[in-house]
């Protein structure tokens, strides 16, 4: 395919997997907002409102991370329920285009949720500057890239969609429960902190905290884990590593 055809292909996939379902099944959108929003509600209630912005930061990151699961379940659905994986493999559509198209469609689904969190952030009275907005967008894109590559690689290994149901919760446990997504990093017992560094969510959340200027919690100074550039570097490294893994290990053609 030429570059122009690739773009056409990518946008077509995003259209049928994102735009059309949104138009035909708008309830799907509620679904993507529901779980980060209910986490936020929980966090705010338990902390008597003190963790509102931490909850917003966590919601943004979690929404993007969950795109990985969505890409994976989309792929598994098309592969094992509709048996359409083979149809795509044996066509001019290359793996990166297919995944990018699906990932883009999931990004579209995430937009309402992200917007909602940003509105809450704006309404909370904390200033949003251009640079902080850019940092958040950067964090979003990097998490999105990482999660999509991970979702794709995993999906190509699954034979049956039920394996996805078993594996996904384990994965999100590792990716999202250990990292201090919804609360300050200092809340985490120190012996657990090294584990948190294993998840890209940790760096993404740290970056979003810095963008939002969350420097203290209830008057207690809350240091960032790493400088912003180091967070960005870590996220780029994760995304790049999983792109390489996807390119080398994903089973596009059955071995």
């Amino acid at each position: 395919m030429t570059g122009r055809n690739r773009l056409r292909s990518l946008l077509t996939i995003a259209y049928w997997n994102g735009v059309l379902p949104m138009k035909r099944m708008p309830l799907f959108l509620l679904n993507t907002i529901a779980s980060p929003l209910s986490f936020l509600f929980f966090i705010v209630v338990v902390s008597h409102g003190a963790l509102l912005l931490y909850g917003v930061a966590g919601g943004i990151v979690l929404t993007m991370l969950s795109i990985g699961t969505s890409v994976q379940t989309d792929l598994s659905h098309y592969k094992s329920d509709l048996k359409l994986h083979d149809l795509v493999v044996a066509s001019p559509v290359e793996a990166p285009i297919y995944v990018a198209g699906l990932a883009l469609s999931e990004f579209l689904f995430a937009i309402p949720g992200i917007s909602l969190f940003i509105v809450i952030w704006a309404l909370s009275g904390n200033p949003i500057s251009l640079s902080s907005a850019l940092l958040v967008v950067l964090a979003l894109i990097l998490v999105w890239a990482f999660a999509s590559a991970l979702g794709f690689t995993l999906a190509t290994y699954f034979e049956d969609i039920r394996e996805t149901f078993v594996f996904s919760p384990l994965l999100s446990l590792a990716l999202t429960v250990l990292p201090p997504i919804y609360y300050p990093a200092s809340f985490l017992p120190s012996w657990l902190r090294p584990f948190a560094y294993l998840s890209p969510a940790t760096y993404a959340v740290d970056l979003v905290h810095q963008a939002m200027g969350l420097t203290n919690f209830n008057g207690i100074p809350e240091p960032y884990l790493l400088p912003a550039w180091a967070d960005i570097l870590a996220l780029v490294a994760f995304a790049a590593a999983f792109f390489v893994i996807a390119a080398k290990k994903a089973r596009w053609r059955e071995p």
Partner: protein
Amino acid sequence: MDAVNTHGLGRTYDSGKDGTRALDGVSLKIPAGSVYGLIGRNGAGKTTFLRIIGTQLMPTDGSAEVLGFDVVREPRPIRERIAVIPQESRPLYFLTVEELVDLHLRQRGMARAEAKERTRKVLADLDLTRLSHKIVNRLSGGMRRRAMVAMVLASDAEFLLLDEPTTGLDPLARREVWAAIRQASRDHRTVLLTTHYLDEAEALSHRLALLDNGKLIVEGTPNEIRARVRWPFRVTVPLTIPEEELRSYGEVSAFAGGHLVFTREAQARSLTELALKRNLPVSMAPVSLEDVFLQLVGRPLDEATPTEEAES
């Protein structure tokens, strides 16, 4: 030019200790522009062969060239030129039939105007126009299958791989698909298809290959294949002629209304005369492809394969 050229192509599925030998040393050529039928019992290896040729599955031994490119080393240029319908695949259920075809073409990189025109044409050819705005989910199973056939036929691929494209289609719909496949061949496209309908295989295919247990049993035009079996004629007589008497003519089997005897031409004639002399109804005909199929793969495995005897 050959669209496909395989040498000792094989595939072993590695499932734990004992792997399944799904394809075993298959060497064959598929002439470009022909319709090539692949037949064989369930589990014979048809899908495995198709998936290797379609670059969806790696072979474990042997080699295959598709449109002049090696399936293992050069999948890219092959994928640019093929379109497939996987066995048991189902179309995206939330699209309309028209969107399904149109978006498939654009996903393959086709420009909007061309995709629109090709979509219109294929829907007309396959008698789907009146369903074009229906959501796929609301179609019957056979209509869905036809929609998949439409997707692939509308593409600009020069080689189409169709794994049981007509399973579940009514007799008229099947004939519409046949017409479209023949048209594809007239347009110099190559079609490789599998089917369990032997009348279809015979009506459509320029050449056929019969696989059994992963091995190529026989290959050629339908007539060549018919000529290669031990018993090229079939005679049916009533049950009143006892089986013992019939055995001297050839191979006897009973069916609901009488005895079926597979035999050679001379014996077929004399058996027909015998029946007529006794005033019994009789029919004699060259074997159908289905008979050939039963003769070649419908016997216990420990017996010698009839083709070997036919050759000696």
